[in-house]
């Protein structure tokens, strides 16, 4: 479960002054559901997700992730969250098995549990062939599978995915989409940020449109279509984001 209430993040920039990257954002995401955070580049998606993953501390408001407050219990939150982003890279000189083991250990797993999780994840993701090869020899798809295994090693109840298909080819991106669906079916709480409309349509149970740090619209895909009188999500997005820009 993710519950964000008036979540705010202000950056102080020497030249640009105060930047409200996330401005009073509130939403909730339940177990077994995928919440899509839709926004253009620089809209505040990454900052929102980094706040939920406790990589950044909120300036205002609060968020409860997997039953723990992100401000007061960040380590507890991180132990229950799997965070995957285009910016979370892998260590090139480690093998896939070593990568999974490293993050398993950092998540408090013992060797036995790490071994069983590695076996399970590599079977599920089809990683047996390259499990003992170094990551720097991997194709993009292999890297993505290793990243997924790294994210899931401690079997987190919440998944925070920040544009996970960014820069991937069609096949690798499809792999991610399939994996996210599977996570939902296992009852995990998933928050998924993207600027690709088709991914939202394929995956998300609820959608929040974020622009200029503000959550401008929220609801199921059906609700949004009905509210804005448009069927095409892109049109809805432009209407919501563009309207704000004109105002």
């Amino acid at each position, binding site marked *: 479960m993710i519950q964000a209430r008036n979540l705010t993040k202000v950056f102080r920039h020497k030249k640009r002054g105060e930047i409200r990257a996330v401005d009073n954002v509130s939403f909730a995401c339940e177990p077994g559901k995928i919440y899509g955070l839709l926004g253009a580049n620089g809209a505040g998606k990454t900052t929102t997700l*980094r706040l939920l993953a406790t*990589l950044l501390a909120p300036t205002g408001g609060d968020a409860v992730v997997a039953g723990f407050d992100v401000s007061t219990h960040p380590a507890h939150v991180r132990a229950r969250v799997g965070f995957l982003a285009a910016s979370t890279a892998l260590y090139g000189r480690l093998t896939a098995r070593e990568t999974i083991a490293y*993050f398993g250990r950092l998540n408090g797993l013992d060797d036995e549990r790490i071994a069983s999780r590695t076996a399970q994840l590599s079977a599920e993701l089809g990683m047996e062939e390259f499990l003992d090869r170094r990551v720097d020899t991997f194709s993009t798809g292999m890297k993505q599978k290793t990243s997924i295994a790294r994210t899931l090693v401690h079997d987190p109840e919440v998944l925070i995915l920040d544009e996970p298909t960014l820069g991937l080819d069609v096949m690798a991106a499809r792999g991610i989409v399939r994996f996210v669906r599977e996570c939902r079916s296992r009852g995990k709480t998933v928050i998924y940020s993207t600027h690709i409309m088709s991914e939202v349509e394929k995956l998300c149970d609820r959608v929040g449109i974020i622009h200029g740090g503000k959550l401008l619209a929220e609801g199921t895909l059906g609700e949004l279509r009905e509210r804005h009188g448009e069927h095409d999500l892109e049109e809805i997005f432009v209407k919501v984001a563009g309207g704000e820009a004109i105002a």
Partner: protein
Amino acid sequence: MNLRDTLTVYRKELRDALRDRRTLISMFLMPAVIMPAILLLFGTATYHVVKKAHAQPPVIGVLGGVDSPAVKAALNAQPGFVLVAAPDDWRERIADKRLRAVVEIPANFEASLAASGSAEVKIFHYEGELKSGFAVGELRKFFTGLRERTLAERLKTRDLPASFARPFEIRTENVAPPEKVGGNTFGGFIPYLLILLSFTGVIYPAIDLMAGEKERGTLETLLCSPASRLDIVLGKFLLVLTVSLTTVACSLLSMTVSLLAGGLVMLGSGRMAAQLSGAAGAALPSLDPLGLVGVVILVLPLAVLFAAVALMISLFARTQKEAQTYIAPLVAVVLLPAVAGMLPGVELGSALALVPVLNVALACKELVSGAWPWTQLALIFGSTCFYAAAALAGCVRMFSRESVLFRT
């Protein structure tokens, strides 16, 4: 702090580093193979140059001496050089290294010697030029001998004892123990080397582990884990320290081996080489071994300080390139106090005991000489530990700052 997480990070970083060609080169290959190879090459080249210079007798020009045939003949009979009549352009020839030196025998030199007079023999040479120096040495040897012989004859003629012209002798004798002599000769050099090596050892891993991880995007992956930032910093710091100390150990070991080997090769060769190896041979074994242990103990907190400072700078930088730009000039900053420690007259005092790097350099000089100024040593160790702890705390603090971690 969670020791398990710190060690997990450390072990992973160690494995990563041991698979990194650049780390291996800077940690093992450079100090263990390349540096001694350079030293050995330099030593061998010096040995051959000196040997060759000795093997070729210098060509020396003579000015005058027409009325001193006996002196000229004796000079000609000397095996150390080849004598020629100085041509008109002898000055240019010395400058062009075609003539090594020119000796001017004054007019009526022999007559003056016979008449108990005084004369001046002039030697023209190329200052600082090795072979010209050899020629001057040979000429001095010859004319000093001639002077001694002339003096002896004059004294004999007048029935005077040899002591008449030499009322007393001046003799110098060393009373300092050999360790002190060794300490003074090499005491400044050893800490200089250790300080330099422990700093150069931290540069690459520190840049790779912070700025490098930031640039490659792996730092964000690591920060997603429940490991505390303190544990992550400590794990990385321990690796940087390990690399630094391994570099120092490898360098010291290989340099000792190559110095001893080089000394054996050069021993008994030309004058300069013999002096070099002789000094090394005389001073190295006479360093106080217990003092060397003290040196290593003092350098430890200094290595901690270097590792923490380098990590902090690397963390601050956005990219590896930026980190290199910040850290490279620091080599000079670190070297200056280390070099200052070698200057004569800069002695260990309570005020200097608080100056980082310089204090360790000065204390090392004392330690290898066998002196143990306990109060100052405690002050130095304490202050260096304090600086190291402050730098490490600063590093941890910086690692908790979002503006630094997500600086783009």
